């Protein structure tokens, strides 16, 4: 293709973006736009799938039948999100199995929050409240993302995430209003998950290498730091309401800014976990790899059976 043509295609593409017209799978798009989306959506899909593990860890130990059923339903929703996000990457020409292999080889990332262990029942509350809460904050703007299939998937995902967030906060409320042991359990979970939840918005704007381009393409609509501030502003009063203390001595309301000021994130910890040194990185990827390996014979059998059936029909 002549260079002039590419320039013209790019001009038309950006014009669509600027007019908030959605880009669809068969539309022309710059290669970088496609690659950025594949990276982001598959990362999102992997996060849903790996995210099943820390919560799956408590299904068999849920304290009563109702909590067990709700937790099962929630983790099942996450698997469903993973499924339609993998489908969204396929509309961009990526192959689901290749994408999954990238996760297993360590090439593809997933949200670092899932590399922290779930040590008590209260962690189910903290994850729903804070982790799904942060996920909603990230994902609501994605409902207006320029890429159609991703934006539409996000509409459905956000509805379910909002139910997850409420059930998490409800667990925390019950514990915070319970016995001293239960309240201590809730506070301990908040202490452990607060900072990792704030890290979920990614590096600070000044260190984020993808933000500027993604904003121009309207894949991203708000910066990491804006979203993180929003999370703090919304969550702090929720903690106060149920009598829990946010573990940040620098946290205070700034009248002038109309926002909370909060302490500096431990970025060494953040990068360390991203690099694979979190408490559970090894276990999480190992569990996913094992699931795929142990399931290989099942998938082969299903394919072999389907092929036999096809032959029978043809003859």
């Amino acid at each position: 293709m002549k260079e002039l043509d590419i320039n013209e295609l790019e001009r038309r593409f950006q014009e669509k973006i600027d007019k908030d017209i959605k880009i669809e799978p068969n539309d022309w798009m710059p290669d970088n736009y496609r690659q950025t989306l594949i990276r982001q959506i598959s990362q999102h899909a992997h996060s849903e799938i790996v995210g099943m593990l820390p919560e799956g860890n408590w299904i068999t130990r849920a304290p009563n039948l109702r909590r067990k059923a709700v937790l099962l339903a929630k983790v099942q929703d996450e698997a469903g999100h993973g499924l339609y996000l993998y489908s969204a990457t396929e509309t961009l020409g990526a192959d689901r199995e290749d994408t999954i292999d990238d996760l297993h080889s360590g090439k593809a990332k997933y949200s670092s929050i899932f590399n922290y262990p779930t040590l008590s029942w209260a962690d189910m509350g903290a994850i729903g409240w804070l982790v799904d809460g942060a996920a909603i904050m990230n994902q609501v703007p994605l409902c207006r993302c320029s890429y159609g299939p991703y934006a539409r998937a996000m509409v459905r995902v956000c509805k379910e995430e909002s139910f997850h967030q409420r059930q998490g906060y409800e667990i925390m409320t019950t514990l915070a209003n319970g016995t001293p042991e239960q309240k201590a359990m809730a506070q301990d979970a908040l202490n452990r998950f607060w900072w990792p939840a704030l890290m979920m918005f990614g590096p600070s704007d000044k260190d984020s290498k993808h933000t500027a381009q993604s904003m121009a393409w309207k894949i991203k609509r708000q910066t990491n730091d804006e979203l993180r501030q929003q999370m703090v502003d919304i969550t702090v009063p929720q903690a106060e309401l149920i009598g829990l203390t946010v573990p940040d001595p620098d946290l205070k309301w700034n009248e002038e800014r109309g926002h909370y000021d909060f302490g500096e994130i431990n970025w060494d910890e953040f990068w360390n976990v991203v690099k694979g040194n979190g408490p559970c990185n090894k276990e999480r990827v190992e569990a996913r790899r094992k699931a795929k390996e142990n399931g290989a014979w099942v998938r082969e059998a299903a394919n072999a059976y389907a092929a036999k059936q096809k032959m029978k029909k043809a003859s």
Partner: protein
Amino acid sequence: MDNALFEYLVRLGDDSLILGHRLSEWCGHGPILEEDIAMTNIALDLVGQTTSILKYAGEVEGKGRTEDDLAFLRYEREYRNTLLVEQPNGDFGVTMMRQFLFDAFRKPLFEQLVNSSDAQIAAIAAKSLKETKYHFKHSAEWVIRLGDGTEESHERVQNALNDLWRYTDEMFFTDEVDRDLESRGITFSMEDLKNTWQETVKSVLDQATLEIPTNGWQHDGGRKGLHSEHLGYILAELQYMQRAYPGMEW
């Protein structure tokens, strides 16, 4: 209190409780994402059944015990599930075979129970039957696929059948509890149920090119509270929170 009815409900409810527990162990580890979702979904249905059955059992007992008291706070010898449902998950073939042998029993059982003279049981059966039809379709299709898939899958699932076969007769265990309820039209003939089960199992295993084991010995004990060593570990996990933090609201 209607002792026989209570006993029957606990047997019915414990099968759902323990099998639901086993299936939920798969969550996050399934061989493909679609099956992860399917097994979690079946587990969820079984937890729902447990809730309604044990709730009714508590009402029949009349001592103020809730479905959670019954599910989480009995001792090992008081659980009444069959040995089949407490068997470990093994590989996906073992899990699907265990599920199929159980579903082939549960589906006709609920088909009978929708006509129970006990309105509550009839209502629970009607709701559970809808779910169990899907469970049966799902597990039977997998047994066929794995049986008639590759050489490896055939061997794995045939071994699973050979190992689990010894726990199948117990599903049709009959004692004075069953005779009493049958005489009142609350439950129906176990013999009819067994005939239906045998026909279904034979037809599916034929399609799966699998052979029904000929070894005769059959275990029982679960319906009387005599379990395998596996149940103790299931209960250690299941009851952990209720035992470590007694008497709290969650």
